[in-house]
């Protein structure tokens, strides 16, 4: 009775692509590039038609022996620096990279100087002996001391 079950086929699962090693390299390069249609995704993640085309281009060029640098150069030549998923570190992007840290340091410095100045202001008043006695009396809650 149990042998009525579904026919079983024992064999090795076929890989999704013909050359998995090549595909890994393609994915590695595609992860460094930006999809220009879905601009917050990498070329590896995006399903936009342009992304599929560009991945095919990468695969073809790699088959022909192009290096990762060649391929990235190919893309930047056509689409500009924006196609790099990580913005390059150059004069034009200096503000982008350094800006947040610089702002944070500036903010912390401003805070430090503010606090230092306040500490100095607070520490300033020097009381004479008489003033000190009067202050003590006031703090002790002696209402008469106020009138004196």
């Amino acid at each position: 009775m149990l042998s009525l079950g579904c026919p079983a086929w024992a064999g090795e699962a076929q890989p999704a692509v013909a050359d998995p090693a090549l595909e890994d390299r393609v994915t590695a390069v595609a992860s460094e590039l930006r999809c220009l249609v879905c601009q917050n995704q990498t070329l590896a993640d995006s399903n936009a038609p342009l992304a599929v085309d560009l991945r095919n281009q990468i695969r073809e060029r790699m088959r022909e022996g192009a290096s990762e640098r060649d391929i990235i150069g190919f893309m930047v030549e056509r689409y500009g620096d924006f196609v790099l998923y990580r913005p390059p570190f150059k004069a034009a992007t200096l503000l982008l990279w350094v800006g947040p840290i610089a702002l944070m340091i500036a903010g912390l410095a401003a805070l430090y100087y503010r606090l230092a100045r306040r500490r100095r202001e607070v520490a300033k008043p020097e009381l004479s002996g008489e003033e000190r006695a009067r202050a003590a009396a006031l703090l002790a809650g002696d209402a008469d001391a106020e009138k004196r």
Partner: protein
Amino acid sequence: MNRYLLPLGVFAALVILLAVGLTLNPREVPSPLIGKPAPPFRLPQLHQPEQTFAPADLKGKVWILNVWASWCAACRDEHPVLTDLANSRIVPVYGLNYKDKRDDAIAWLKRYGDPYDASIFDADGRVGIDYGVYGVPETYIIDKQGVIRYKRIGPVTPEILKEKIVPLIAELNRG
């Protein structure tokens, strides 16, 4: 008064920066090909596949390359503007039919009108990639030496036509 001046100044600077930012389009990817020679190619024409076209064929003339497709809705929006441009006869307008089916493209042109001197058939989009096409429609102005001088990403509006494209064509034709 002075102690309020610094935060106020910083705030004003921030407001100006953000206000300018609001007028910019964050999705626009400026083309690195401006000022570079138009990438060469040779492709069959849409209506007559036996005939081919290459940018070198138009050396010595200022011309416009408009990337379009029958599946592209925005191309329909810019179609009247392109037709006006073509009818004014100030510049030859060539179409690059991008990742389309020949029959659909020909039907589209028959239905809406054909403003192009000729359309070039880029079935797999390879030439589009060479030109940095990422969103149809896109329009290029190419000068007499075959150098790309201007790229419009998105449909050509009458304002863009009047303020950018027509003056540039006049200037390039003078040179």
